[in-house]
């Protein structure tokens, strides 16, 4: 799997992502600075990692969505390429119009840094193949703007087409308000594009891939990707 991690000014979880991808695939991903206007030949997966691109001033992800490299990412996606956006990366994907909706300020108005649980709503995708539908996993979240919003029509479509990937849940898998710390619509933590190749989510599975750091709950996402892309 040839993974490329895009580094914007202010990106800060590129190393975490590189560690997780290398752990799952045995290969070091390429780090690509946002000024590039093309992806390396043979790219299988583009990752937009977490951080505060351009300080997240104005709106999270808004300025990064306009970076030169994003045109190449759009073209890659249009040709059916796989794109993963985590946290700030998810925000950038929505700002760039590659995923619907927007990430508003957390309903608590505070930065939220803690482990959360998510229920897998759709299995069998390149991102979730290693989980059963309904499986629950844990991951740290660390964001100020993670409150997923979309209009009713979009919401109906996401639900109807099975494009909600993950919802915040209790450890037992119940979808409750208390589990929905940032106030996201219908506890949505992550979504997929209609072709299931673009995925955005707020929490950080890449920070939970090593028993030393508290567990390997996040690893299935990366092993799913490695297997799907190896056979693709």
């Amino acid at each position: 799997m040839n993974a490329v991690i895009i580094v914007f000014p202010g990106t800060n979880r590129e190393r975490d992502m590189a560690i997780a991808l290398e752990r799952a695939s045995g290969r070091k991903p390429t780090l690509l600075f946002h000024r590039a206007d093309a992806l390396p030949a043979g790219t299988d997966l583009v990752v937009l990692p977490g951080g505060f691109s351009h300080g997240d001033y104005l709106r999270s992800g808004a300025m990064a969505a306009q970076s030169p490299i994003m045109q190449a990412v759009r073209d890659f996606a249009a040709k059916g390429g796989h794109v993963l956006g985590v946290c700030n990366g998810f925000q950038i994907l929505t700002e760039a119009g590659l995923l619907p909706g927007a990430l508003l300020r957390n309903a608590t108005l505070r930065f939220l840094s803690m482990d959360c649980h998510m229920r897998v709503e759709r299995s069998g995708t390149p991102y979730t193949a290693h989980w059963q539908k309904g499986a629950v996993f844990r991951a740290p979240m660390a964001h100020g703007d993670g409150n997923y919003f979309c209009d009713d029509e979009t919401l109906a479509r996401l639900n109807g087409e099975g494009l909600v990937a993950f919802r915040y849940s209790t450890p037992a898998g119940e979808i409750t308000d208390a589990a929905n710390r940032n106030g996201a619509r219908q506890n949505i933590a992550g979504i997929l594009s209609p072709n299931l190749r673009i995925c955005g989510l707020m929490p950080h599975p890449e920070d939970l891939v090593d028993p030393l750091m508290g567990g390997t709950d996040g690893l299935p996402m990366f092993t799913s990707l490695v297997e799907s892309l190896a056979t693709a």
Partner: protein
Amino acid sequence: MKALVTVMPKAGVLDPQGKAIGHALSSLGFAGVADVRAGKVIELELAETDPAKAKAAAEEMARKLLANTVIESFRVEVV
């Protein structure tokens, strides 16, 4: 000339900041505040001297960057 771009959350979009401000105002004892919306204002100092052109340019900037029209609406004023 100066252009003021005011960006507000669209009607129907959750506005946690506005809600929290409303809450804080009432706990500070301010009565009669029915509704609060919190938005942004961006002041642009433009080289352009023609008001109509300045307004058009600022609107273009708002559409492309300053506002996210999925959740926000904007208005531009030239002063």
